[in-house]
């Protein structure tokens, strides 16, 4: 579904990603781990067009998306959340959900979109907050709202950047359920997390980044055994 080839991204003199290649199959959950500053967020930023790659390319359903803008990539069916949530603070929860409506309104009337957003909010158990302002929600609720907003676009591939960071344990279990359920519906995920328990239990395959380089990939079991990974990351 997604193919990344020899991706390189530099910020001035700093190489945040170097020659990273990998594939994600349809309906797979790929976990990405690595120490702080290893380039995980940058990888997502390049995939969804916030940054342009300096080298290499990205193919989504066999079409190159490396040069497209974020909104075009979003419309093609790649959604994402942010490590530090970015909801629209001066809009209500419902309005936040309806922002994507402008780009999808052709595929449904207002009623249908309203219905859809209520359905998603109900699924995420935040429908009671629908008239609250974005800024008055808690951190965990921001994460749920951001996921909800992503789902409005019906993406096939969802990139989650640290969805469990700073989230209440109960909510974390809920998030696990949501991811599993969406995965059951056929969605594909790239999941970034420092939460080892979560990422090892959710992911089918793992990729390890260190200083912008891919140092290992494999099943969770294989990664646990990998000497280099243990040294670079798990060891400390």
């Amino acid at each position, binding site marked *: 579904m997604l193919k990344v080839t020899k991706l390189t991204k530099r910020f001035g003199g700093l190489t945040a990603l170097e020659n990273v290649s990998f594939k994600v199959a349809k309906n797979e959950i790929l976990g990405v781990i690595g120490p702080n500053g290893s380039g995980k967020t940058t990888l997502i930023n390049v995939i*969804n*067009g*916030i940054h342009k790659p300096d080298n290499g390319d990205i193919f989504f359903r066999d079409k190159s998306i490396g040069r497209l*803008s*974020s*909104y075009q990539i*979003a*419309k093609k069916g790649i*959604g*994402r959340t*942010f490590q530090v949530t*970015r*909801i*629209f*603070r*001066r*809009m209500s929860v419902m*309005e936040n959900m*309806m*922002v*994507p*409506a*402008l*780009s*999808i*309104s052709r595929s449904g009337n207002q009623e249908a979109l309203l219905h859809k957003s209520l359905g998603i909010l109900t699924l995420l158990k935040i429908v009671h907050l629908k008239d609250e302002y974005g800024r008055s929600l808690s951190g965990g609720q921001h994460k749920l709202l951001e996921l909800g*907003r*992503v789902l*409005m*676009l019906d993406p096939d591939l969802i990139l989650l950047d640290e969805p469990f960071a700073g989230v209440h344990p109960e909510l974390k279990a809920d998030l696990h359920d949501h991811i599993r359920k969406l995965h059951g519906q056929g969605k594909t995920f790239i999941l970034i997390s420092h939460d080892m328990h979560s990422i090892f239990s959710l992911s089918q395959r793992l990729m390890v980044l260190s200083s912008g380089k891919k140092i290992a990939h494999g099943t969770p079991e294989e990664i646990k055994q990998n000497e280099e990974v243990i040294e670079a990351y798990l060891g400390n």
Partner: protein
Amino acid sequence: MTEYLLLQALNGLIIGLIYALMALGLTLIFSVLKIVNFAHGELYMLGAYFSYYLAKLFGFPPVLAVLSSMIIVFFIGVVIEVLFLRPVYTGAVERKDEYAILITFGLSIFLQNLALFVFGPWTRRSPSFMSGTTSVYSLSISNDRLFVSALAVVFMIATLVIIGRTFMGKGLRAVSQDREAAAIAGINPFKMNLLAFGAGSALAAAGGALIGPIFLIFPTMGAMPVIKSFVIIVLGGMGSIKGCIIASLILGEAESLGSVLFPDLTRGLAYKNAIGLLFLVVVLLVKPTGLFGEKHVRMK
């Protein structure tokens, strides 16, 4: 004296509404593009001239002339955005704030001189919307002024409804709050720029076209109102729509009443333009973010 004051208050309200149209346009542009449009006064001026010529030369009924003028200026705004401001968002220029200031400032001077060249230095006055006067108790006020106020309110409400209720409005607000997050949600930020600049320009044009039958039309007519609009958006708290409308009305009233309540009546009028600035200084001393400002907004 009371009658006179009431009349002045009413005039202040009308001026305030015109200011509000203009400042609303400036706010819309500022919120979405994070650019202060120094050519805003010239869009106001163009709005007045187009409306004047459409009515005078082509016999458009006044209201139709105003609307057509807004549409023309909308597209002028779109062209300006594509030609001059797009580079800010494609990363083609490095010092974005400085570039935007210089380019819109240059555009302002260019348009003033172009108007001088094309339309001439003479002052003009648009045909009236509605002749006669209306008397309420002992106050009499020209129908033109009433009509202008009503139209200004209609344009303002239309703008608020579009921004508050429609999908497009949500797109504009989303881009104004977080460009990248809006793009992730599938909103084309370039399209929103175009829309905001076009609509902002059209609002300035509406102000100019409406003022046409009441005040005079001349190439530099936008110079003073644009400064007022800057005062208003800072006073209202950069980017706040509610703040912008309230600040406009306050400024209109403060100027109108301030100049007649001034102790030395012979000089009151001369101080009119200073009153708004004085008020701004006082507000900023007490609340640096303006009346309804949240925090500092800056282009990334």
